[in-house]
């Protein structure tokens, strides 16, 4: 286990401004792809800028491959860090051909060695015959592949990608996302990406950090972010779902309108405590045999499935993802059943980040 990137207690503020990065810590293993996910303005891009050396950090420290490269008042110049950067707007050099763009970071190599390396990368990004073209003759997806190749050419120790797919249309985004993951894994290159699109994050990254207001709320796998969010913010930001009221009863169960839910042993919720339980659309199944019924308040047809908004007796609304052939009309009462692998509950009224997490197998 060797960490390629370690960030400890990073703090950063633009001159005279508020704290943009507040105590950010994370660690990325060699060959791993990480992603910072968060709404715009949460400080995720600033973390990238600090790692690449475009900004000077004010507290904490950053290590690459076990060497400290940035501490307050002491930092390795950006051009010596060997960190590749891929930008949202590609930032290709318009006056250079595709081949020259890719070869740009290879000025130390002689002409033949450079041509060989450029040829390799053109093959990797599947633009082998486009070397003589200019950036403005390419489509958005092609440009971003060239930008990736340009950043990879000097064999960076770490690749940083700043919202790399947000200028592309949705289909292209998904396709290119998978390609980029395959390329990075194929070359065993560690990377840290920034995005506000969770599908993008989940498609590419091994580990995702959900950021809010300059802090990383949770640094975890996509599965855990979805099923075991540590805070209300993560629960709301990642995936869909609603929080319904419940109360911890004495038998280690949580009483809710939908019936008792299991309660795990290592949760520090006290009996009698009011909580809110997270219900994902896939936690609520449609079951005609169930005695529990809810009224269809809204439905969104999504092809393979329908996302129903269901109104419970109390008026509380929950979401349910149902296979598409179960087509019910608005106002109809349908039977539902809960199937929850991980019960997630937050004490009512408590701050987001200090919420408790509970699970049951």
């Amino acid at each position, binding site marked *: 286990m060797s960490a390629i990137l370690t960030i400890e207690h990073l703090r950063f503020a633009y001159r005279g401004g508020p704290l943009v990065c507040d105590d950010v810590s994370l660690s990325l293993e060699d060959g791993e792809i990480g992603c910072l996910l968060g709404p715009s303005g949460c400080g995720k891009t600033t973390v990238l800028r600090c790692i690449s050396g*475009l900004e000077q950090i004010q507290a904490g420290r950053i290590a690459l491959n076990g060497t400290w490269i940035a501490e307050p008042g002491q930092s390795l110049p950006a*051009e010596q860090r*060997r960190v590749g950067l891929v930008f949202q707007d590609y*930032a290709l*050099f*318009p006056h250079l051909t595709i081949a020259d763009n890719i070869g740009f970071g290879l000025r130390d190599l002689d002409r033949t060695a450079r041509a060989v390396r450029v040829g390799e990368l053109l093959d990797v990004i599947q633009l082998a015959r486009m070397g003589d073209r200019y*950036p403005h003759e390419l489509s958005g997806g092609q440009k971003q592949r060239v930008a990736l190749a340009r950043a990879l050419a000097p064999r960076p120790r770490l690749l940083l990608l700043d919202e790399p797919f947000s200028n592309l249309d949705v289909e292209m985004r998904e396709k290119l996302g998978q390609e980029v993951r395959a390329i990075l894994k194929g070359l065993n290159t560690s990377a840290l990406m920034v995005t506000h699109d969770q599908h993008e994050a989940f498609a590419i990254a091994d580990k995702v950090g959900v950021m809010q207001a300059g802090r990383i709320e949770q640094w975890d796998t996509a599965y855990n972010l979805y099923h075991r969010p540590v805070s209300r913010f993560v629960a709301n930001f990642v995936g869909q779902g609603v929080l319904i009221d419940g109360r911890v009863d004495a038998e280690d169960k949580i009483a809710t309108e939908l019936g008792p839910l299991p309660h795990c042993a290592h949760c520090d919720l006290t009996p009698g405590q009011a909580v809110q339980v997270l219900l994902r659309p896939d936690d609520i199944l449609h079951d005609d045999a169930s005695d529990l019924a809810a009224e269809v308040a809204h439905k969104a047809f999504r092809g393979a499935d329908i996302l129903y908004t269901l109104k419970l007796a109390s008026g509380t609304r929950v979401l349910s993802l149902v296979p598409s052939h179960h087509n019910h009309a608005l106002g109809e009462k349908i039977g539902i059943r809960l199937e929850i692998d991980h019960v997630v509950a937050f004490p009512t009224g408590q701050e987001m980040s200090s919420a408790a997490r509970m699970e049951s197998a």
Partner: protein
Amino acid sequence: MQYNWNWKIFWEMSPDGSGTYLSTLFVGLQWTLATALSAWIIALVIGSLLGVIRTSPVKWAVRLGDAYVELFRNIPLLVQMFLWYFVLPELMPKALGTAIKQMPPPWGSFVPAVLCLGFFTAARVAEQVKAGIQTLPRGQTMAGTAMGLTLPQTYRFILLPVAFRIILPPLTSEFMNIIKNSSVALTIGLLELTARARAMQEYSFQVFEAFTAATLIYIIVNIIVVFGMRWVERKVAVPGFIGPQVAGGGH
């Protein structure tokens, strides 16, 4: 109006004995071009340097560049010409000032005229270069840094090659301006094209012929410049990015 048109005047000998009136005009044109070209080199070098430092992160350098531009842009060219010719030698150490004043003609007027036009136009070139660099996305600089370039290298290999392509059309105008502005040098005694036309008018009283000829020569020279610069623009155009084929803009 009584005026005797005489277009044959150009083939008559000028009283200064150097040749026909036409040949004196062409000698004048040579001095015009020599002055404009020498001044243009100064303007390009100093203007580019100023344009670059005005976009640099070094605060005091930016202020210095701004001050230069404001100073040279806000004083009339004619006044600047007199400052270089009459005032500057007086401000020099006595020996140097005397040496400058005793430069033989035409160098005594040519050197101050070139310096004046060069430093004046440098301020305008600096504006263009700064604007050209500032139209480039900030990501270009960051991309350069991320590729391991130092700031000077980023300017040299990324920013300036693109910025100069963008500002070629306004630079063409500046080059044409410097050719036309060189006529101001006649006030400090440089016998360039306009001065020769005036001399011809004074000797021969054929004012219309003299200035028609001067006008045509200026127009022809500037048309050649326009076509020359268009050729350069096409030559350095980047397919699909800058150049004649994307006059309408867009993607």
